[in-house]
């Protein structure tokens, strides 16, 4: 059972690296994120191949099982990614708002006076 889990972990790790590499080459992923995801994939492969490493890390940190260590580690990484993503979204939203505002202010629209209104204003003059 444990061996099956290790195989799945290695496969997911390989998938993460290939998927992020492809997206990086299609310019859909920044270099920074490509490296981050690749590092994550690499950690998965290493732990899949050498599961005793997670046991060692778990015992150093005072966690009983290697799988618990993996779970805690994943939650921390995901939490960090979520915060980073939220900050980025806020920044993009703020820039978008500024852009939309500038666009609206630089293109005010007003009804062009019709023929009747034009002649009325001429008469007034």
């Amino acid at each position, binding site marked *: 059972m444990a061996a099956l889990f290790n195989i799945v972990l290695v496969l997911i790790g390989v998938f993460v690296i290939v998927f992020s590499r492809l997206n990086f080459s299609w310019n859909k992923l920044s270099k920074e994120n490509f490296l981050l995801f690749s590092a994550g994939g690499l950690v998965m492969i290493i732990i899949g191949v050498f599961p005793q490493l997670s046991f060692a890390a778990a015992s150093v940190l005072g966690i009983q099982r290697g799988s618990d260590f993996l779970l805690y580690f994943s939650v921390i990484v995901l939490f960090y990614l979520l915060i980073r993503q939220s900050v980025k979204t806020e920044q993009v939203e703020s820039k978008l*708002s500024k852009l939309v*505002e500038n666009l609206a202010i630089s293109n005010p*629209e*007003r009804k062009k006076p019709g023929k009747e209104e034009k002649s009325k204003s001429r008469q007034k003059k």
Partner: protein
Amino acid sequence: MKSPDIFIVVAAYNEEKRILKAISGLQNFGYRNVIVVNDGSRDRTRELALSSGAVVLSHPVNLGQGAALRTGIHYALKAGADIIVTFDGDGQHQASEISRLVTPIIDRKADAVLGSRFIKKGSAVNIPSSRKFFLKAGVIFTRLVSRIRVTDTHNGFRALSRRAASRIDIKMNDMTHASEILDEIHKKKIKFVEVPVTITYSEESVMKGQKTSNALRIFAKMVNKKIFG
């Protein structure tokens, strides 16, 4: 002495059924500088506002009422407004009451005049009881968070002097801007008064207006802003 240039900023999102009535109401009372901010409407709001003679500023995407007011206020300041009145496009506000809002600014008694439906002589016609409850709760919340003593916190009918409008920085795009404006008034020590206004709720405005469930979101956002800036 030259009479002040009063600009009316109307934030509008999918208001094709109500916008003409709102603009003509303003024009009937002699307000010529009407700025409609069409906030990414998918209906004929823009065309109808244009046909009525208002200046229309269009957001290509819907950002929210806070963003629309920010755009309108910045445009009005650039156009030389002395006083800016924010007015809803859904027929809840009365154009006849604008004079009451701008008088304290003209008399130099205040830089911000906030409409209130809950002070003496103010009224909220056909207000649903759940809405009234949350608005009252909002007053208590604002007193605690923004430490400003007002009787009506989420009233979009207000007037700002040029000086106040230049100093108030609206960052929130959504309905949270109403609390943010009060926060700014308190923080920047802008002199304000409340005046009674009438807010008329129709079935449509209740359906379209701020949802009661938004109250919790606004609460969370304001607390977040207070903590993290």
